[in-house]
Each structure stands twice: as C-alpha cells, then as structure tokens.
C-alpha cells in the first residue's frame, strides 16, 4: 500500500512535466505580449524590459531556467503585478479558494449520498422521481447561472446572506458560493448513489441475506450501503478537482478574493508566469485529489489489491 502510493506519486512527475511544458510553449504562441499597451513602448525601453525578464534569451534557455525555478519552488515574477512573485500572489488567494472548494465537496457528499440512498430506498416513488428530476437540473446548470440566481433570491429579495463587499472571516459571505459549487457535484453524487444501490440490491449476497431472514432495512443499511459507495468514492477525486477549478467561476460571480482571478486576469494580460503558475498549482491539486481517491478505494473495496 505504502509502496503503491510512492509509485503513484512518482508517476505524477511525467504528467506534471508535460503540463508545465505544454503551458510554457502554448501560451508563448499567443499573439500579443505582456508589455503591449495602447501606446507602443520606445524600442530601448522595450529591450530593457525584455532583458530584465530574460525574454531576449532563446526560448529553450528560458524554458530551462523556468524548469529550474519550478524545481526550486519558484514560479517566477509576475509581469503585471510589479515586484511580486507568482507564488506570493497565488498563495495569498489559495487558502480562500481551498476553503470554499473543500467545504463544497464535503457538503455535496453529505447531502448527495443520503438523498441518493433515499431515492433508491423508495425507488420509482414520487420522492424518487422528484429527487432525480431535480438532480438532473442540478447537474446540468453551470455555476455562473446558479450563482447569480442564488445571489438574487437569497442576497437581494430575501437578504439572509451577504453577497457584496467581502470582508475576511465572515462566514455569511461564503454560504452561497459553497452551495453554488456543491450543487452540481451533490446532484451527480445522488444520481451515482441511487444507480449503484439499485444494482447492488439485485446482487446475490443481498438475496442471500434476505433469505436468511435479515430485515429489508438492516440489509439496506448494513449490507448494501458500503459497497454502493464505491462509485461515489471513485468520483470524489474528479469531484474535488471540479470543485477546486469551479471555485474560479464562483469567486468571479461573488467577487471573492480567491486565487481564480489570477488565472483569468493573467490570460487577458498575457502574464505568462502567472498563467503557468496557476496551471501548475491547480494541476498538482487535481492530480493529488485523484490519487487520494484511488487510495481510498482499497479501504472500501476489499477486492481491490494494490500491486
């Protein structure tokens, strides 16, 4: 198990290498540069700027020095926010983004699993159809539609939560963003849970347990629930990844100072190191979530053996 985890972590390195290289070269193909302004800069100033940031060196040398920086944990200077390193800027927003993301993933799991189980327990009843209809809409609707609508209803018409002018440390600002982010994930988990329970309830070991006289309720709670969680757990990795990148949208909808804005602003400004830094950090987070989900697998499903 421990060896398996180590091997998987080592396996992340080529993926990250591809990721860094891809973002490095692709963003440099983009038209326009970080120093383009309304007025063209005098040639000398432009040359000095390029020299200061090392853009006058051959591309491959820049690539080498960027990789060396990444290994040392330095993602380079921001081109737009003068005198700031990319790591400082992203680091300043990351705690908030992660708080929102993880809270949303937790909420989605805690609400989605029981609702999915309820739908399966009362399969083909009105409750089931209502829950599955709602979850369909929940899965389909994007955060930038749900967010403003929730803000309209619960922030303006019926102001129980605060939606504008974020003040750090006030949980009231975070409720709606977390719900917005959790909705599609929770809805998807509910659907997964219902479908996997339905399948498991038809399995032989359930019939055996019922034949031995175990009550339907006991079979459902003690025998069926745990194996039914397996697809949900395997979805948790992608789900956490979705929620972390999804916080990008939610932050922009609710005007929260997370790290998502650096990616969007960076892409607009052609702030190369900023975009590459965001891609790298969020890429690492995504890959780690998938890894943790894979490891959880073995704990839930004794049939899975790590080689």
């Amino acid at each position, binding site marked *: 198990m421990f060896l398996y985890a180590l091997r998987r972590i080592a396996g992340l390195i*080529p*993926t990250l290498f*591809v*990721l860094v290289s*891809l*973002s490095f070269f*692709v*963003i440099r*193909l*983009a*038209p326009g540069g970080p120093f383009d302004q309304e007025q063209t800069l005098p040639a000398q100033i432009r040359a000095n700027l390029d020299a200061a940031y090392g853009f006058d060196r051959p591309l491959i040398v820049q690539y080498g020095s960027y990789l060396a920086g990444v290994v040392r944990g330095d993602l380079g200077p921001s081109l737009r926010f003068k005198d700031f390193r990319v790591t400082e800027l992203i680091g300043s927003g990351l705690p908030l983004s992660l708080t929102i993301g993880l809270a949303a993933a937790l909420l989605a799991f805690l609400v989605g699993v029981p609702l999915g189980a309820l739908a399966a327990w009362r399969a083909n009843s009105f409750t089931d159809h209502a829950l599955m209809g709602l979850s*369909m*809409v929940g*899965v*389909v*609707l*994007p955060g*930038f*539609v749900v*967010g*403003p*609508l929730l*803000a*309209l209803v619960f922030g*303006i018409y019926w102001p129980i939560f605060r939606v504008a002018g974020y003040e750090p440390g006030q949980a009231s600002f975070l409720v709606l963003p977390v719900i917005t982010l959790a909705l599609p994930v929770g809805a998807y988990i509910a659907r997964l849970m219902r479908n996997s329970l339905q399948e498991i309830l038809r399995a032989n070991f359930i019939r055996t347990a019922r034949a031995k006289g175990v009550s339907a309720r006991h079979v459902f709670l003690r025998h069926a629930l745990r194996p039914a969680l397996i697809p949900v757990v395997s979805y948790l990795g992608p789900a956490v*990844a979705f929620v*972390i*990148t999804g916080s*990008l*949208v939610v932050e*922009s*909808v609710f005007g929260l100072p997370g790290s998502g804005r650096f*990616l*969007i602003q960076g*892409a*607009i400004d*052609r702030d190369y190191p900023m*975009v590459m830094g*965001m*891609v790298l950090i*969020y*890429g690492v987070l*995504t*890959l780690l979530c*998938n890894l943790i989900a894979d490891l959880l697998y073995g704990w839930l499903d004794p049939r899975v053996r790590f080689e």
Partner: protein
Amino acid sequence: MTGRTRAALIVLGLLAALALLAPWITPYSPDFLDWQHLAVSPRFDSSHWLGTDRLGRDLFARGMQATRVSLLIGVLAALVSVCIGVAWGATAGYVGGRVDAAMMRFVDIVYALPYVFIVIILSTLFARGSIAALFIAIGAVGWLTMARIVRGQTLSLRRREFIDAAIASGVTTPAILWRHIVPNVAGPVIAYATLTIPQMILFESFLSFLGLGVQEPFASLGSLINEGAQEMESSAWMLLVPATLLTLLLVAFNLLGDGLRATLESRDE
C-alpha cells in the same frame, strides 16, 4: 422514443427556429440602441417583449442572436471533437500495442488536467472574439471521452470476422479504419456527440462569461448572463432571460442525449 426525449426535441426545435427566424420576428436588430426605452422590463403589449438592457438594446433580439452563437459553436465544436476523437480512438484501438498505449497515455494525461485551464490557455492563442478560433479551442479539449469510447468499441470490433476478411482481401489499414471501423462505431458516437454539444455550449458561455469568448457587439448567453448579473438588483430580467435560455438549451440537449443512449443500450441488449 420516450416522452422526455420527444419533449426535448420539441423544445430544441422551437428554440432553433426562434433563433434563426428572430430577425424577421422582431423589428429590432441586436445592436440597435433604443434611447427612448433604456432598461425597460418585459411586457407583452410593448414591442420589447423581453425588455431591454441598460443601453436600450432589445433583449429578445440579443437573446436570440446569442442562442444562434451558442448553437453554432456547440454544434461545430462537437463536430471538431468528434472528428479528433473518432480518428484518435479508432487508430489507437485498431493498431493496438505500443501505439495504443502511447496514444491512450496521452489521453490520460490531458484528462487529468482541468478542462477549464486548457480551454483558457487555448483561447489566449487566438485574437479575442474570433468565433472560429473559439470552437477550435473548445473542440480541441472535448474529444478525450470520445476517443476512449471509440477505442473501446474498436477493440471489440477488431476481432470480428469481417475485419479479418478485409485484411485477407488486402484492404489497407486506413481503408479498413474508414470503411469498416468508423461506420460501425457510428451509433455510440452519435449518442455521445449529442451529450457533447451541451458541454461545448457550456464552455463557450463560460469563456464569454469571463470575458474571454465572444466580444461586443456580439452577444453570447454567457456574456448576457454576466451583464445581467451586474444589473440584477434593479433589473432582474436581464439575468433571468439569458439564464432561462441557457438552462433550456442545456437540459434539452442532455435529455436528448440520454434518450439516444438509452435507446442504443436497449438495442444492444
């Protein structure tokens, strides 16, 4: 065909017809500024059925123009992703061995990366506002699942007798792929492509919402939602109109895709 699939088809047909015929239905063009009617609310007895925005532009005209953009980008981007996905998956599955391993490893790596990021990076490649560039950027990330599905199908097709017969009669590999593999994976490809369209529409709206997609004076449902969200305190309809249109499109396409997939699966059993 279930009632749900039929309802989805009807809604989609109506929306597409409205979007295409809008220039003949409403007297207003999407970029006409009506100074007498700034930010008026929807009224059926006025000529601005769905109201106007802050600059006096008719929201029905703009909403329909945005729906056209969404449908166009959704369908074209889905087409791009189908082409790449089918070619990639069929080649990997048919050739097999190391080629297959390398190709699918690449898919796995790109799969592990957040989609949104790839789209944002790719969208910076093109001049802002270019619709053609937008669907290429979006389509270029949508093909991964398609490639996996097609590969899986191809793996089982490869062992069938008619493929052996084609090899024995000297048909070249590209010809086998094109004449024998591709037609046989068409069913699942069509079903999944229908589910790809709403994803593509979503990506486009998302980029436009962030200001990285369709640019003024063109509207996209995403950019309309963004504008509406800023005005929602005083004029909620500016948000509700594009949000409803986008919701209808997404739900209808998803129901249609699910219906097609269910039909296919029941046929296979």
